[in-house]
């Protein structure tokens, strides 16, 4: 059994990582999941959170907002709308994202209000998580 898999992390503007990974921890919409080589094919949407990549060089954390992950036989590709290396995230960036989520929550369509509230909560959790982790 292969002990590594191809991992790609791309945002609309650039490719952030393309490495051999041992495991990837993904904040999926229905809960976190850890992907290891030979995972069953899966497509899941992301919620805002921390994505952890474990490769031969150690673990790297990325703060991601919405997007999706495609887990296939040949590896994992994560397409995230906004991606930052976790320790580069600043308070101001989090505040801005929480603020925009709050706006979205306020102006959300009645059908969407739950989703927007969840998004806001996830954003705030992400903010706390990053704040504890450094800065």
């Amino acid at each position: 059994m292969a002990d590594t898999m191809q991992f790609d992390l791309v945002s609309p503007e650039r490719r952030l990582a393309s490495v051999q990974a041992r495991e990837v921890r993904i904040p999926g919409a229905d809960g976190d999941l850890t992907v290891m080589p030979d995972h069953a094919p899966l497509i899941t949407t992301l919620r805002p959170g921390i994505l952890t990549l474990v490769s031969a060089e150690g673990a790297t954390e990325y703060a991601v907002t919405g997007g999706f992950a495609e887990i296939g036989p040949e590896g994992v590709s994560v397409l995230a709308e906004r991606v930052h290396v976790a320790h580069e995230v600043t308070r101001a960036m989090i505040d801005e994202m929480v603020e925009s989520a709050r706006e979205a929550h306020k102006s959300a369509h009645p059908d969407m209000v739950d989703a927007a509230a969840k998004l806001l909560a996830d954003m705030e959790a992400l903010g706390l998580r990053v704040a504890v982790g450094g800065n």
Partner: protein
Amino acid sequence: MPSLKDLKNRIGSVKSTRKITKAMQMVAAAKLRRAQDAAVAARPYAERMTAVMSGLAAGLDGSDSAPRLLAGTGADRTHLLVVMTAERGLCGGFNSTIVRLARARAGELLKQGKTVKILTVGKKGREQLKRDLASHFVDHVDLSEVKRMGYDTAQGITRDLIRRFDAGEFDVATLFFNRFQSVIAQVPTAQQVIPAHFDATEAASSLYDYEPSEEAILADLLPRSIATQVFTALLENGASEQGARMTAMDNATRNAGDMIDRLTIVYNRSRQAAITKELIEIISGAEAL
């Protein structure tokens, strides 16, 4: 016959024009590099997105649960044309080719008795369409404040599009932009984004598990996929604009050079003629004595 002084002024002015066009060409070349890099960097995301969307869409095609953004409103009456052009001119046929394509499409649709709405992105297209299609304008996106084309811009445009679609303002949306092929070739392109259209070539859909359900993912991803298409179009357009400007300015620089050569010949001839004339006057004066 212009005087020597006039000619000299003329040469001077063409020379300074040449300096400006040369500078613009070099600036465009530098910007083109950056725009091309941005377009290349955005490609993996767009490709993966399209691949996954094709799979998803193929699985759901024709079923009743397909979201409206994919299935459309069922009508084909009101068309929204999103005309993407540059904020600046002096880039050869770049703006005109897009406008020409959009205008042809608008004419066609109007002839079929459909309603046409136009959303302009970038000032130049708006100016050119104002003459005959101003009554169809619904909105304008100003890019003059945008220093670097970011995904945020595309998201903003997409949110606006989806809001209008949900409000029933149009049935079909088409993007008009220039696809970048090379520095000298930009292809004006019309691309339908709403209802979303995917080539259902990949039947990999059944291979995957979906979390949450297929429908939920599709509903979540459709707006993102549209934003990606808008973003790609903006980047392609950005690269095309700089490429077109570079070519146009290169031509202008060369033309200015030719003009300077011609004017210099005329200048030298007239100067020589004046000298000869003076000599003849002196000699004939001396002979008369």
